[in-house]
């Protein structure tokens, strides 16, 4: 991403540099050339419509180029690749809690392998924060009550700043951390230690403990919908609407089950708001995702260090 943003940024610097030179040059030249001299009167000029049109249209055209280019870069950065490694991020005043899909937990640090897409599924426990890694030219606000998603791919091993860039209270400037980018081999070594098992396994255990599995059965007999293969698919709701089962939908269904009732089911599920923590929610979401082949493959291929697709210029 950094390359894309930088190229655009440099383009903008050149464009505005030229504009600045043009205007400053003209102002300074005119100011010197036409300075007041005794006996010389100013020459009145009313204006010129062709000129006005020219200097409206040309900037507008340049602006449209900037817009289009910016939109493409933005769109790319908002669309995480399907097979990205997933990390759940919980922000709170004033720390970052990270949880890898494989189960490793970290605070204010995030270890990632070089050259692999990393998708961040982020939420906040209290106020709005913002996940900002200047080196990756990437920033996304982290909101309470919902997930926001961001992704990046590191190209150089090293340690990079992680800042909270949305003002969040007293220790806002202390809510910093590091992204530690490692060679794949080192990363494997790091990953092998200190895990309590994959996040989805924690979620599976919770799923049983909270009694979810009594209704959400793996057959068609449950009182709740069968969750196998649901993630990422469109879901038909009772009122005729269709939603895509993404992270936010699963989250909402746990916390506010009455909001979107799946067609053919009764609104019998109790809310789990206040009963599960953000970390537990993440585990449950990870578990539901693991029930879908696409998500599963993502977790499995996570260790296979996929090569860049080629279209992604770094």
């Amino acid at each position: 991403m950094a390359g894309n943003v930088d190229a655009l940024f440099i383009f903008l610097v050149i464009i505005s540099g030229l504009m600045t030179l043009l205007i400053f040059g003209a102002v300074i030249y005119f100011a010197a050339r036409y300075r007041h001299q005794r006996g010389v009167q100013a020459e009145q000029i009313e204006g010129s419509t062709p000129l006005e049109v020219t200097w409206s249209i040309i900037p507008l055209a340049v602006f449209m180029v900037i817009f289009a280019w910016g939109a493409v870069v933005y769109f790319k950065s908002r669309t995480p690749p399907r097979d990205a490694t997933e990390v759940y991020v919980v922000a709170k005043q004033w720390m970052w809690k990270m949880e890898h899909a494989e189960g490793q937990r970290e605070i204010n640090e995030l270890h990632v392998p070089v050259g692999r897409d990393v998708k961040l599924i982020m939420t906040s426990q209290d106020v709005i924060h913002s996940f900002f890694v200047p080196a990756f030219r990437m920033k996304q606000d982290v909101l309470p009550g919902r997930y926001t998603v961001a992704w990046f791919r590191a190209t150089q091993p090293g340690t990079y700043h992680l800042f909270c860039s949305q003002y969040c209270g007293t220790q806002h400037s202390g809510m910093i951390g590091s992204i530690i980018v490692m060679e794949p081999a080192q990363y494997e070594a790091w990953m092998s230690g200190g895990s309590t098992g994959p996040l989805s396994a924690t979620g599976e255990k919770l799923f049983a403990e909270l009694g979810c599995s009594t209704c959400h059965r793996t057959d068609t007999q449950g009182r709740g919908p069968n969750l196998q293969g649901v993630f990422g698919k469109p879901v038909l709701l009772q009122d005729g609407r269709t939603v895509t089962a993404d992270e936010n939908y699963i989250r909402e269904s746990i916390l506010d089950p009455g909001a979107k009732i799946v067609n053919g089911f009764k609104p019998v599920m109790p809310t789990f708001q206040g009963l599960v923590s953000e970390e537990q929610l993440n585990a449950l979401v990870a578990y539901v995702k693991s029930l879908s082949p696409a998500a599963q493959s993502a977790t499995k291929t996570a260790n296979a260090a996929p090569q860049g697709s080629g279209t992604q210029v770094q």
Partner: protein
Amino acid sequence: MSVHATSSPLKTYFAVWVTLLIGTFLTYEVAKIDLGVFNSAVALTIACIKALLVALFFMHLRHASEKLLKVVVISTLFFLFILLSLSMADYATRGTGASTVSFLIAHIKAILPA
């Protein structure tokens, strides 16, 4: 009030008054019939007509001697429309959960014969 004094505006005033009362009654009664998404549409249409009547006749916008007052009203409504439409544009297209767009489509589908 030489500007808009016609012979006697009383007739107009009472006619508007009666229309407004009928409109209120109609709004109240129509709400009891299930029209799906069109319940709100009907209620808001009647409300707009009522508001227009008050503005045109009671507030004398119709007879206003100058276009300026109409310009003020129309441009205010334009900016109100900007506020409502552009902020809702965000909500209607947020990918998360059921968007307003799919909500409307679903409602219209529900009303159309299968």
